[in-house]
């Protein structure tokens, strides 16, 4: 089975063909946004981290930015950095890491003689040359083994657990059965149901890792001393009928389908094996989406009963809901309406429909979020308290 993708030098294939303009730190967000806005074919990735990072966050942010840059949906990458004496994250380490993939990478330093605006202007010229070259690359049939499907959920309700996540989990099963790979994330939203996923691990090591990431996350939350009921599950989750974090988790893990769990990967890392993987991320959807993109996911499905507006800068996000009135009202940010009764009685037929949509989007059909350009949200995960 194949889809129409963009072949890359490292053997991967993209479902999109952008130039990524990646901000090294929060101080260069404006410059990255500015450059990407001015040059067609460019997308910005910005985040809030900066010079004050300490280990282990420094390593996590570095590898996350490198692996975001390596995502096959990017044909080339421009790193934007202040270029000051205290860069926090070294832009050259990021650029060299991304360059291992064989794609063009350059660094735009803002602290240059002639002022910041002229440095930005030179960055635009570099990005334009990269984009011009990227537009020569054509879609071609590529094996579905190059499809990496990320699965996300946000704005959980009992119905999203029962139906919408079951639909995307079944679609993920189809991706993997046909030779692709994929995975899910959001560690705290697995608490209470981690044994169900761990039982599907391919060996004891993967099983231990699955249980460990959940245990460690729960320990960190407990150590804070705060009561998270009312935050996760949040007030809307509770109003809709979710009575505990475990109940949310029971619905959450359905999005991971039914295939054997081959690997548990750390935040910002890329899975080495094919098949199903789990990424250790927060339940917050923005850093979670970033984790999926850094893992090399080139298409994402996202169940959202509360109609979360955002997408992601360079990975198409197919948004699905079972809420018919939302689907009609917010038609411009939702892509697929899940039939509740059909999913309960015949989940495979619904999963197959979603799988077909995934292949269409992977082959170039734009998502609703892409059509209206609502794709700007991005964030990273760090765990050390801010100083």
């Amino acid at each position, binding site marked *: 089975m194949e889809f129409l993708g963009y072949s890359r030098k490292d053997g991967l294939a993209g479902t999109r063909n952008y130039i990524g303009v990646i901000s090294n730190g929060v101080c260069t967000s404006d410059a990255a946004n500015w450059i990407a806005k001015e040059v067609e074919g460019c997308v910005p990735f910005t985040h809030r981290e900066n010079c004050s990072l300490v280990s282990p966050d420094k390593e996590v942010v570095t590898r996350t930015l490198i692996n975001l840059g390596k995502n096959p949906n990017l044909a080339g990458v421009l790193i934007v950095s202040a270029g000051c004496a205290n860069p926090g994250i070294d832009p050259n380490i990021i650029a060299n890491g991304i360059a291992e993939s064989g794609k063009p990478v350059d660094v735009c330093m803002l602290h240059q003689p002639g002022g910041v605006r002229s440095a930005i202007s030179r960055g635009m010229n570099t990005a334009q040359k990269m984009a011009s070259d990227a537009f020569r690359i054509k879609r071609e049939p590529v094996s579905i083994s190059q499809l990496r499907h990320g699965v996300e959920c946000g704005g959980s309700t009992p119905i999203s657990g029962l139906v919408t996540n079951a639909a995307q989990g079944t679609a993920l099963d189809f991706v993997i059965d046909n030779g692709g790979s994929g995975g899910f994330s959001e560690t705290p939203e697995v608490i209470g149901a981690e044994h169900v996923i761990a039982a599907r691990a391919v060996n004891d090591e993967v099983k231990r890792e699955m249980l460990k990431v959940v245990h460690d996350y729960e320990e960190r939350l407990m150590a804070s001393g705060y009561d998270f009921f009312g935050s996760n599950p949040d007030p809307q989750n509770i109003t809709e009928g979710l*009575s505990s974090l475990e109940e949310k988790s029971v619905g959450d893990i359905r999005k991971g389908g039914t295939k054997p769990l081959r690997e548990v990967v750390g935040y910002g890392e890329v899975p080495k094996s094919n098949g199903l993987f789990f990424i250790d991320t927060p339940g917050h959807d923005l850093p979670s989406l970033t984790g999926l993109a850094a893992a090399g996911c080139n298409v994402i499905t996202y169940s959202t009963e509360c109609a979360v507006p955002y997408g992601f800068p360079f990975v198409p996000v197919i948004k699905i809901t079972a809420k018919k009135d939302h689907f009609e009202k917010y038609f411009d940010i939702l892509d697929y309406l899940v039939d509740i009764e059909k999913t309960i009685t015949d989940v495979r037929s619904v999963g197959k429909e979603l799988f077909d949509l995934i292949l269409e989007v992977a082959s170039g059909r734009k998502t609703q979020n892409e059509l209206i350009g609502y794709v700007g949200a991005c964030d990273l995960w760090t765990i050390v308290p801010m100083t």
Partner: protein
Amino acid sequence: MIKAVVLNPRDNIGVALVDLKSGTKVKIYGREVWVKLAEPIPYQHKFSVTPIDSGKEIIKDGVVIGKATQDIEQGHHVHTHNMTGLRLKVNR
């Protein structure tokens, strides 16, 4: 039309797929049983399909999602007023 569902044979709660009125007898998809509801059950909320004693586990989709904080008779709404989760509990 399916009005309520039980996901797993171990489950002691069902999920309403439409707003269900008090006093109605509901046929549950996934289990050959009718449950007479003692109170209204809002769309996608839970109700007990068997009596659940205080302190007993609440099971959904085969997984323990908490325990009953009071005796729950059959056909009653199950939510934060009569059950609690067991994980991520911080004693301050």
